[in-house]
């Protein structure tokens, strides 16, 4: 399945068909999810209306972890099989994951202040998610730090794989250490411990975020494929033109970005 999809031409064709459907579904899920979260869902009996922050904070946190796992798996595929589409997928996903992590941290802070009395505490859960954010930034910086994209991709991929050790630390930080952060209430042994009136909008928002990730991933991967194609066309155009003087590098007239 992955091998079959990992053909750039086939990916471009399939993503062109999938993107409008994914985009439409994301818009519907987010619209329904927002209405449900802000209007329909009841306030919490202890936390009042601040519980509504959960409907953004928790799906963003799930995406922060899932997208990192995606970047790591794509990096492993790129390292082992040297498939260019895997490297493109990892590079395209990382900024989306960083954005979800940032949203998770900021909304958590805005939830922490009224409920804990502090914008930030250096406890295990918060600190490990902050490290996740820095891992994303480190990956993005490293992958783009080399003139040769292949070398940058390999260096970034190694960092992404080393950073995977942070994922179980984040997940189990609330069980391993004493923390202000509440323990898992949805993905736990014995099933979710949250009222259905709150679980439903939470899952719809999570679906909306996941679909948004899928659309943005495909869009950014196609952008990268276009940019590589444009570079190849420029080199091709340069090679076709006869060099006026020996030693002069043939440069296309179209190197200036639009």
């Amino acid at each position, binding site marked *: 399945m992955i091998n079959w999809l990992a053909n750039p031409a086939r990916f471009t064709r399939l993503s062109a068909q999938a993107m409008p459907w994914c985009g439409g579904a994301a818009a519907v899920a987010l619209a329904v999810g927002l209405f449900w979260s802000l209007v329909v869902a009841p306030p919490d009996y202890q936390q*009042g209306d601040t519980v509504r922050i959960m409907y953004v904070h928790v799906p*963003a946190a799930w995406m922060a972890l899932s997208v990192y796992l995606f970047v790591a798996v794509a990096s492993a595929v790129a390292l082992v099989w040297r498939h260019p589409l895997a490297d493109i997928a990892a590079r395209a996903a990382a900024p989306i994951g960083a*954005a979800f992590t940032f*949203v998770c941290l900021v909304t958590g802070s*805005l939830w922490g202040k009224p409920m804990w009395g502090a914008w930030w505490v250096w406890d295990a859960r918060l600190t490990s998610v902050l490290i996740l954010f820095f891992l994303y930034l480190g990956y993005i910086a490293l992958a783009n730090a080399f003139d040769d994209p292949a070398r940058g991709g390999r260096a970034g991929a190694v960092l992404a794989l080393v950073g995977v050790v942070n994922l179980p630390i984040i997940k189990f930080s609330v069980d391993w250490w004493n923390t202000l952060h509440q323990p898992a209430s949805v993905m736990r042994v014995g099933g979710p411990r949250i009222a259905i009136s709150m679980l439903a909008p939470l899952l719809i928002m999570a679906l909306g975020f996941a679909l948004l990730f899928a659309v943005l991933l495909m869009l*950014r991967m196609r952008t990268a494929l276009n940019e590589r*194609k*444009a570079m190849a066309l420029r080199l091709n155009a340069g090679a076709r033109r006869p060099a006026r003087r020996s030693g002069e590098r043939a440069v296309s007239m179209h190197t200036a970005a*639009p």
Partner: protein
Amino acid sequence: MTGAVGAFLTMGGYAGFVWPAYGIAFAVLGGLALFSWRRYRDSAGAVERLERDLGRRR
């Protein structure tokens, strides 16, 4: 402010925390989507222009 709309806007006194949380999430994710879309449009335009120019020169 009273009534259902007032209660919605004041968020039980937590408006200063709930609305910024949704606003920042919207700004960050919407901004990323807009930036990604514009970069895609530019890249597609560049490929189209280059292919047209190469075809003309042949």
